[in-house]
């Protein structure tokens, strides 16, 4: 197959996954959250248990007026949703579903994915700054503080896994995975999960969009499709982080019939992690801003450093 066609096909496949998986997670959140609260959730859209609710929501968002505030920094304001959305699309391309099923196989894909997902927060920052709204600015500042606090433990946790596998490529890491890692890398896994939830600004770490305090944070002034893009980026972020967690800590495609059904295993494990993220949102209240910083610097960073030291010790002694 000629190269341009192959590249186009791979890009298309990633785009389709990028448009389908977040909706799947969003619908799961609708239903799981509803049942956890003793409700039914959407029941009408599409006929069967409201399966088309998010499609209907999308149609609604498209119809809404796209407003740019008069005092806003027009260009930055309009570009911000794309800046928030595109990094997760790029990150999704680098995550392998099975040893051979990866859209863009990069040698240092673990580093690449981490770097790219960190760019997503920039969109929130731009949105908050350009909105000319004090609540938006407060939200953006909170998002920035949150990113700074949680990027470090996350990188440290991933570094520990890379050290254990002796590889910076996600394919290599998942290939070197063994069930023993579930125990060995457990502290790192917990640190990664907490940091991922914090970086996605999901409850209990949703101070940047805390609706009872600062309206809707950086997204306050957004309407219509641009607002929908921010929501989509949140769910795309859940997909990326869940798949990343599955590949790094749960062994990705390892499982029964892994040579045929490997991709399914990765997707299933990622989906389970996404359900866990949803569960945490339903069960736990929002942290205060100072509690967030306290948790990051006094608990997660030492824990991640300890995990890194443990991994290093083990690798050196057994090598």
């Amino acid at each position, binding site marked *: 197959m000629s190269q341009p066609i192959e590249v186009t096909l791979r890009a298309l496949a990633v785009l389709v996954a990028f448009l389908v998986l977040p909706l799947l997670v969003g619908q799961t959140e609708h239903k799981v959250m509803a*049942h*956890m609260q*003793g*409700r039914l959730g959407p029941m009408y859209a599409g006929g069967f248990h409201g399966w088309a609710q998010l499609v209907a929501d999308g149609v609604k968002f498209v119809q809404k007026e796209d407003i740019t505030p008069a005092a806003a920094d027009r260009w930055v304001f309009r570009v911000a949703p794309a800046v928030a959305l595109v990094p997760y699309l790029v990150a999704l391309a680098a995550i392998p579903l099975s040893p051979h099923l990866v859209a863009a196989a990069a040698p240092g894909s673990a580093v690449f994915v981490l770097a790219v997902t960190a760019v997503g927060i920039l969109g929130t920052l731009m949105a908050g700054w350009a909105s000319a709204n004090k609540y938006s600015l407060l939200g953006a500042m909170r998002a920035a503080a949150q990113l700074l606090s949680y990027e470090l433990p996350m990188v440290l946790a991933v570094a520990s896994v890379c050290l254990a596998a002796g590889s910076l490529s996600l394919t290599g890491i998942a290939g070197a995975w063994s069930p023993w890692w579930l125990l060995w890398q457990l502290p790192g896994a917990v640190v990664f999960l907490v940091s991922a939830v914090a970086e996605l600004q999901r409850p209990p770490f949703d101070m940047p969009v805390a609706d009872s305090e600062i309206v809707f944070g950086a997204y306050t002034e957004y309407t219509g499709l641009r607002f929908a893009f921010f929501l989509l980026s949140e769910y795309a972020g859940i997909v990326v982080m869940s798949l990343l967690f599955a590949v790094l800590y749960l062994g990705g495609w390892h499982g029964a019939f892994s040579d045929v059904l490997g991709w399914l295993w990765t997707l299933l494990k990622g989906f389970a992690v996404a359900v866990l993220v949803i569960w*945490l949102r339903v069960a*736990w209240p929002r942290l205060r801003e100072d509690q967030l910083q306290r948790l990051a610097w006094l608990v997660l960073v030492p824990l991640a450093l300890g995990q890194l030291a443990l991994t290093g010790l083990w690798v050196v002694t057994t090598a």
Partner: protein
Amino acid sequence: MTQASRPSSRGAVPGILKGLATTAKTLVRPTHTAEYPDVPPHLPPRSRGVIALLEENCTSCMLCARECPDWCIYIDSHKETIPAAAPGGRERQRNVLDRFAIDFSLCMYCGICIEVCPFDALHWSPEFEYSELDIRDLLHEKGRLGQWMPTVPPPPALDERSADPAEIAATTRPARGASKLVTGERATAGARAERARPTRSVGDDSPSGAAGATPGEAAAAEAQARPTPPPEGEDQK
């Protein structure tokens, strides 16, 4: 889960784990949602949905209209003279109901009109789906009020050891000065009283079921039985 090690959490089972357990338990339990338009609601007995009119019982005595706290009942009537039944007899007069309307945009569902009606012309019906797009359309004339009559549930059964209703007690009481009447007659009268009681028990009545049982057909049968009421709106002035 790392947050369990936070200094603020105390107790054997940290609160955050309890929260997870509670939500997980709720997830597997059936939901409380009443899917109203698809599933008819289970209404309690004696639900006050709408006031139905049994036109034949109404004597236009105006008691209900006068007792109504917010004056939402409108009654018009005229007298008709009935010619003497037998030659040489006296002509009699009778009230004929021209208009009976209840404005449900004013009604506060106190039920006083139903309480004061001496002839049981007004009844509570559990029917509640009569919302309108215009508030003025909530003024319902006697034709519409009569259509709700088939949805009125039968009265609940009396309590287990309650006294006989006055009407039945009157038949079983021995006639004045006839205290030496044979006891057998009393026994048959008592059996008649048993039969006259409604057999339904209070617990199992489901007005929603009664309301759902093709009210249209029942209303049509009712309408045939009655003299045809003038079409609604014609007597609104």
